[in-house]
């Protein structure tokens, strides 16, 4: 089982869109895929038309009082399941903190899912918290959407430095440019030059397109309602790059 997490400290950078579309593309290839919407805002859950509710809330999940897999819902798509968000996730930090080995709890919960799933995506809330530290311990690869600005490399370096400081498990990092506006020279320059300089940035980039925003209206992954669009092609290319890196052994930080 391969665990990917879409992560960034900032919000509104395209984490959920990436998680939903990449999870869908993985499942379409035949991989049994689970997407865990860890964000209490429940955007991914909404996109799949699933109620943002887990019986017993995050307490039941973390304490194991209800079977973890009983909370999983099938989406409308073959091979793709969702562990929905729940508003109680906002207090998950407190529950994790009270547990033994508080940074390893998500990894522990995900372990038994290897029987059922080939690929897991974690759609993380935008923050630095105990939840995100758990995600770093659980994930094999962090998929980091970054907007091509002058400060983006600094953000990425900070994250790389933090991951490098982890004692045991260190996930590989793959950033990709998100919400790229080709009309802006700065965006064009950064997208053109930076991937050539750094191995931790994907060559595939996701454009800023209203079509991607339409996902919230259509409540479906982009390749479902716009299979031939440029944006779908970009996500497809990104997924090929991510899964290709996994097959060739992946990269560690930069």
């Amino acid at each position, binding site marked *: 089982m391969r665990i990917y997490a879409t992560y960034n400290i900032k919000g509104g950078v395209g984490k959920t869109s990436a998680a939903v579309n990449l999870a869908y593309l993985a499942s379409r290839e035949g991989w049994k895929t689970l997407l865990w919407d860890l964000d209490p805002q429940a955007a991914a859950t909404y996109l799949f038309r699933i109620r943002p509710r887990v019986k017993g809330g995050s307490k039941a999940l973390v304490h194991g009082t209800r079977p973890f897999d009983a909370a999983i*819902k099938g989406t409308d798509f073959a091979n793709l399941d969702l562990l929905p968000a729940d508003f109680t996730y906002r207090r998950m930090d407190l529950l994790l903190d009270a547990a033994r080995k508080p940074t390893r709890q998500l990894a522990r919960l995900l372990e038994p899912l290897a029987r059922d799933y080939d690929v897991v995506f974690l759609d993380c809330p935008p923050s630095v918290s105990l939840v995100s530290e758990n995600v770093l311990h659980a994930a094999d690869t962090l998929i980091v959407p970054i907007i091509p600005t002058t400060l983006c490399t600094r953000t990425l370096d900070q994250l790389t430095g933090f991951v490098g400081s982890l004692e045991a498990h260190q996930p590989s990092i793959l950033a990709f440019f998100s919400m790229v506006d080709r009309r802006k020279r700065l965006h064009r320059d950064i997208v053109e030059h930076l991937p050539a300089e750094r191995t931790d940035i994907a060559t595939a980039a996701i454009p800023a397109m209203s079509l991607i925003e339409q996902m919230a209206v259509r409540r479906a992954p982009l390749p479902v309602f716009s299979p031939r669009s440029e944006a779908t092609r970009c996500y497809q290319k990104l997924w090929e790059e991510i899964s290709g890196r996994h097959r060739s052994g992946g990269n560690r930080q930069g």
Partner: protein
Amino acid sequence: MPRGVREFTLDRSFATTGARAIEGPGASAAWPYLAGALHPRFQVAADRPLAVRRVWLDTFDWRLYRAGLGLEYISRRGFAELSLVTREGTRIVSTTRAMIWPGLSDTLPRGPLRERVAPVVGIRALLPILSSAGTMWTQCVLDSEKKTVARLTVDDGVVQSGTGTGTGTGTDIGTTARTDTTMTATALPTRLTVTAVRGYDGQADRIGRLISELPGISPASRSALDTALAAVGRKPGSYTSKVGVQLAPATPAGPALAGVLLRLLEMAEANVEGVIRDIDTEFLHDLRIAVRRTRSALKLAGDALPGDMAVRFTPEFRWLGQLTTPSRDLDVHLLGLQRTAAGLITAAPEDLQPLHASLVRYRVTERRSLIRGLRSARFACLTRDWRGALSGVVTAPDKATRRWAEHARQPVANLAAARIRRAHQRLVKTASRVTPASPDDDLHTVRKRGKELRYLLEFFATLHEPAIHRGAVRELKQLQDCLGEIQDGHVQREAIRALAARMVEDRAAPAATLLAMGELAAQLDAAASVAREGFAKRFAQFTSARNTQRIALLTKVAA
């Protein structure tokens, strides 16, 4: 029934009574009816019907069915999937490329489905046991959020089945030696399946309840495979390599033995086509077992057949046995090569690659002779004449039986008891003479005596008290396993030497391969020696008072 799946059968008359606008065959008329029953709580999303071909797969000896597993290959335009329903009720689905059957389990896509199927089917190929062509309508049932909570599938299919003459076993699974086959099409009952999307079992239950309240729809009592088999009058699990002929103790020995031999003939014939098509190696194995059992029956009890039947047919079955030996030997080498290669210590497994290539090449040559033999007039005459002679004995009128010799007229229970007792005595006598210094040939003789006793026990099994019979066979089997390990080690060691010489002659043996083969021969020898050390203990167990008592009870009737 798989978890989260509810199945119903639709009465065919439903199509004309339940729907208002009815056009087209069965399934199409069902939708308005079903949608109406689910409204307003659920909506049914429209979809197009798909032409599908469904192939139910199993091994020739029904290993999946016996293990409570059902495997289907479902193909439609540009899409194919395999669906396995397990005994615990879970369904494992795997999308796949278009596949051609028969195929071995290692051709299945990697994943949980293959992991579940492979250990059950082992080295046997998966064959189409039945196929249907029809229309599949899948419709999504949506909740108020327009989220799919369940899928409704209506299947209308026509199953193709062959009827004809040939084997007479009723065990054909697409491949047996049917000589005069005509295909008939049988319409299957329309089947409605409600499949819950994961996490929505409650809604699927509600959908199931709403549907089951409709007239013309009743819960399915059988699996789709069982329904299809019943529709074409096919009995599942009908092929087995067990003898299993029901005998009454007082039946005259001649007809009883002829009945057993007819069963062995059916078994041999059922496997011929599989051997010729090289579907899997077990076809040849089972064919050889049927021939070996026949030869043993002729040798040990052939005098119970009237006239000179045993004398007439013994040389022909010897020919048939010899015809199959070279191919089977090569099969055994190839099947064991991967395991033995993994056990090499000095040599690398890839050093044996030239040996593998040579074995494959020799096998192609040997199979040509085998197929020629099985397609020959001699084989056709043998099976035809043998069946004719045996049928004549089974159906002989009383007037004719009076002219038979005493051996043929005696009750079969007496014949069984006397022959089993004699075979047991011969085995004990031969095995008692074995010492640590005895040559390999002596142990080979013991093994042959053991097989003779085993076959007699199998032929007459239905005359015996099952528990006593099982105990006696279990002890004998353990002794046979030990003898098998000893002899196989020696025989294979000699075969490896012979192969090495042949490969050198063919200039197909690099030095590394010869060294690896040397190590292999040494390992086989060592394994045989270890097994030989255990022989005395095994034999002591076989001749224990308890087992001797079992044999005495099995042979008591003749006293």
